C-alpha cells in the first residue's frame, strides 16, 4: 500500500458548507480519481477553520498552501495544476485587503498569525467525526490524568489555580463553581453544558462543537469527576443541526470505546452524557431557565438563590458551564494550571474566542489571549473596515452588552476593562459597525430582540422592554419628543434593578451605552428630525447639490421609481413626492452631490 503524500483539509463548518463544501468535496474526489491521485492524496473535512469571510477554504498539507473562495468549477484546474503538476494555483490564494498582496501560506496570513489557539487548537486540523484523530492530538489524556492520578479536590484546586472564568459572559470563576457543587450534599449530581448560543452575530460555541466536539465531552468528564456527578446533559439548540450531528457521533464513539459509561478507563468512575435539544428560546441560555427546560417545563428563569450548585436540575446539585469553558478544561489538566495562568492578564486568564462580524474585512472566528486590545483584533486580525468607510463603534456581548466607540479602541479585552467602558465581555460576539450605522436604530434592533425573547414571567422585563421599544421606534420615525431620552434612562434603570434574570437586567445595556457615547445622535433624531447616518427612512429627504453635481446621470439610472429627472448637460432633480428613500441615488453618486 502506498503512503499518503498530501492531506487536503477542507473546511466543513456551517459557514463554508453553506457556500458549497459538499459539492467541492465531491468534485475533488472525482478529479483526484480521474488523475489516479486518490491513493496518495486524501480529502478531509474539518470543522470551522475560522476564516469564514473567504470560505470555502482549504489548507494543503504538508505544503502549507491555503486556498480561499473555492467553487466547484475551480476544482478540475486546481487538481491538475497543483496536485498533478505541482504548481500552486495563484488565483485562489488569499489576498490581503489593504495591500492586495497575495499570500500563499496560511502561517503568513495576519488573520492567523496573530491568534493564540487553546480552545480552537484542533480547528481545521482534525476530522471532528474521527475520535482517533482527536486522540492523536493528546485527546482524552487530560481525562485519563484526572480520573487515574488526581482526587476530585485536586482537580478543583487545579482549575481554581488556573484562574479559568466562565466563558458564557458573566465570568464567574469556574473552580469555585465546581467547589460549591462538589461540597453540596447529595449522591446524585449533574453536569450540564450550555450550548444554547443565542446572541445575534455569535457563533463561537457552534464552531467549537462542529470542529472539536470531543474537547467539550472531555471537559465535562473531568467536571463530573470533580463534583462526583454520574450524568450530564448538553443543552444544544436545535438550530445547530451540524453541531448536534457531530456531538451525537462523538458521544457514540466515546461510548463505544468506554470513554463514557461505566468504569471509564478502568478508573471505576461512571459518567454518561445525553444531548437535549432546545427549541431556540433566547431565555433558555439563562441557567435556571435552561434547567427548567431540560426538566420538561416551560423555559422560564426562577429567582436565585438557591443557586444551581446547591439545587439545580431536579433539585440536585448541578454544575452548568459554557461550551468554551469546557473546551479549556482538558488542556489545563494536561498542561498544568501554571501554563494556563501564564496567558492573559492578572484577573482574566487564558484566551477568548470572538466571533468577529459586521463591517470588517476579515469576518471569522478568532481566538486571542486576554488583554489583546480591541484595535489589534479589529485592525490587525480583522484587517480594518471594509470599503472606504470609517470605524464608528464595536458592539460587544450582544443584546446584553454595549458598544465601544473609537476613543476606547485601545481597551484590552478582559472582563474588568470591558465592563469599565460600558460593554461586557459576553459570550464573544463582536460586531463592528462603520459610519453608516445609526446607533438609535441599532439600539432599537436589540430592544426589539429582547422584547421578543422576554419570557414574560416578570413585569419589568415584559412591560418595560416593550415600552422602551415603543419610544425607540417613535424616535426613529421622527416623532421623538423632548423628554424621551430621560424616560428611556429612567426605564432602563428600573428594569435593570428589578428584572428577575440576566436577560432583563442586561437588556437595557445597548440603549444605555449608545446614550452614553452617541447621545448627540439621539438628539439629532429628536430635535433636528435628522438621522446622521442616513439609516432611518422616515427622517430622510434627498436633494441634489447643483454645485457639486457633474451631470453624469448615474443617479437617474439608479432610481427604481423614476423620481429623478435628468438630461445630458443638465443637473439632476429629485421629485420628493415620488422618492421612496431607497438610497440608490445616494450610493450611486460618485461626487457626494446627493445628500
Amino acid at each position: 500500500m502506498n503512503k499518503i503524500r498530501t492531506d487536503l483539509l477542507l473546511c466543513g463548518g456551517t459557514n463554508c458548507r453553506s457556500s458549497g463544501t459538499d459539492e467541492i468535496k465531491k468534485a475533488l474526489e472525482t478529479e483526484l480519481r480521474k488523475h489516479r491521485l486518490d491513493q496518495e492524496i486524501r480529502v478531509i473535512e474539518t470543522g470551522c477553520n475560522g476564516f469564514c469571510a473567504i470560505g470555502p477554504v482549504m489548507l494543503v498539507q504538508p505544503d502549507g498552501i491555503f486556498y480561499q473562495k473555492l467553487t466547484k468549477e475551480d476544482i478540475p484546474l486546481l487538481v491538475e495544476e497543483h496536485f498533478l503538476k505541482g504548481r500552486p494555483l495563484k488565483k485562489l490564494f488569499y489576498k490581503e485587503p489593504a495591500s492586495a498582496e497575495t499570500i500563499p501560506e496560511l502561517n503568513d496570513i495576519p488573520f492567523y498569525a496573530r491568534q493564540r489557539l487553546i480552545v480552537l487548537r484542533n480547528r481545521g486540523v482534525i476530522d471532528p467525526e474521527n475520535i482517533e484523530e482527536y486522540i492523536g492530538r493528546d485527546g482524552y489524556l487530560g481525562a485519563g490524568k484526572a480520573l487515574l492520578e488526581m482526587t476530585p479536590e485536586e482537580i478543583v484546586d487545579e482549575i481554581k489555580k488556573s484562574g479559568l472564568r466562565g466563558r458564557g459572559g458573566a465570568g464567574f470563576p469556574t473552580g469555585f463553581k465546581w467547589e460549591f457543587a462538589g461540597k453540596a450534599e447529595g449522591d446524585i449530581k449533574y453536569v450540564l453544558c450550555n450550548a444554547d448560543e443565542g446572541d445575534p452575530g455569535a457563533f463561537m460555541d457552534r464552531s467549537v462543537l462542529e470542529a472539536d466536539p470531543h474537547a467539550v465531552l472531555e471537559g465535562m468528564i473531568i467536571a463530573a469527576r470533580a463534583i462526583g456527578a454520574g450524568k450530564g446533559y448538553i443543552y444544544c439548540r436545535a438550530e445547530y443541526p451540524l453541531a448536534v450531528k457531530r456531538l451525537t457521533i462523538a458521544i457514540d464513539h466515546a461510548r463505544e470505546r468506554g470513554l463514557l459509561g461505566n468504569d471509564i478507563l478502568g478508573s471505576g468512575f461512571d459518567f454518561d452524557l445525553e444531548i437535549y435539544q432546545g427549541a431556540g428560546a433566547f431565555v433558555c441560555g439563562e441557567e435556571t431557565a435552561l434547567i427548567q427546560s431540560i426538566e420538561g417545563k416551560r423555559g422560564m428563569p426562577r429567582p436565585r438563590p438557591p443557586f444551581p450548585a446547591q439545587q439545580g436540575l431536579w433539585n440536585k446539585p448541578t454544575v452548568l458551564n459554557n461550551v468554551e469553558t469546557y473546551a479549556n478544561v482538558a488542556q489545563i489538566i494536561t498542561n498544568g494550571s501554571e501554563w494556563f495562568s501564564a496567558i492573559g492578564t492578572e484577573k482574566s486568564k487564558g484566551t477568548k474566542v470572538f466571533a468577529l462580524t459586521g463591517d470588517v474585512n476579515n469576518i471569522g472566528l478568532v481566538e486571542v489571549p486576554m488583554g489583546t486590545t480591541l484595535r489589534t483584533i479589529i485592525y490587525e486580525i480583522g484587517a480594518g473596515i471594509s470599503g472606504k468607510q470609517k470605524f464608528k463603534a464595536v458592539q460587544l456581548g450582544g443584546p446584553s452588552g454595549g458598544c465601544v466607540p473609537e476613543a476606547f479602541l485601545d481597551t484590552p479585552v478582559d472582563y474588568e476593562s470591558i465592563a469599565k467602558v460600558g460593554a461586557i465581555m459576553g459570550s464573544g460576539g463582536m460586531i463592528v459597525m462603520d459610519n453608516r450605522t445609526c446607533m438609535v436604530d441599532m439600539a432599537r434592533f436589540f430592544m426589539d430582540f429582547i422584547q421578543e425573547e422576554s419570557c414574560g414571567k416578570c413585569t419589568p422585563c415584559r412591560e418595560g422592554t416593550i415600552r422602551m421599544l415603543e419610544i425607540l421606534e417613535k424616535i426613529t420615525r421622527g416623532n421623538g419628543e423632548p423628554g424621551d431620552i430621560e424616560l428611556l434612562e429612567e426605564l432602563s434603570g428600573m428594569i435593570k434593578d428589578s428584572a428577575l434574570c440576566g436577560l432583563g437586567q442586561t437588556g437595557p445595556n445597548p440603549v444605555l451605552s449608545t446614550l452614553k457615547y452617541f447621545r448627540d445622535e439621539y438628539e439629532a433624531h429628536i430635535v433636528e428630525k435628522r438621522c446622521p447616518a442616513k439609516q432611518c427612512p422616515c427622517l430622510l429627504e434627498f436633494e441634489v447639490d447643483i454645485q457639486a453635481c457633474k451631470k453624469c446621470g448615474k443617479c437617474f439610472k439608479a432610481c427604481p421609481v423614476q423620481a429623478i429627472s435628468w438630461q445630458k448637460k443638465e443637473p439632476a432633480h429629485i421629485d420628493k413626492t415620488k422618492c421612496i428613500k431607497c438610497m440608490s441615488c445616494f450610493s450611486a453618486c460618485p461626487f457626494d452631490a446627493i445628500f
Partner: protein
Amino acid sequence: MAKLTIEDLKKIRENARKATSLRSGEVTVKITVHMGTCGIAAGARECMNALLEELAQTDRQDIRIMNAGCMGMCSSEPNVTVELEGQPPVIYQHMDGNKTRQVFKRHVLKGEVQTDFALARIKET
C-alpha cells in the same frame, strides 16, 4: 468494541499521530518530484510512485514528498530534488523508478549523495 485503558489510549494516540503526521510534526527530509508537463511526459509519475512505495515501507514520519512544477531544464527531466535538513538541496536528473529507489535508500535514509545521477547541488545564496 472493548473498553479502553490508558495504555490503549496511548497506543491509539501514536497510531493516529502517524496517520496525521502530514499536518504537523517535524520535517527533516523534503523530496520534490518535478512534475511539469515535461516531467510527466518523461516519466516523473514512475518516480513518484516509487517514492511513495519506498516511504510506505519505512517507519519515518519526518519525510515529506511533494510535487512541484518544471524547473526550466526540460531536457534533464525527470528531476527529483532531495533536501536533507541542514544540507543544500541536491537535484537528480534523468530519473526512473529504479534510480529513485536507489536515491531514497542511499541518500534519503543513509545520507550518501548519489553523484552518478546528480545534476547539481543548489548553493545557498
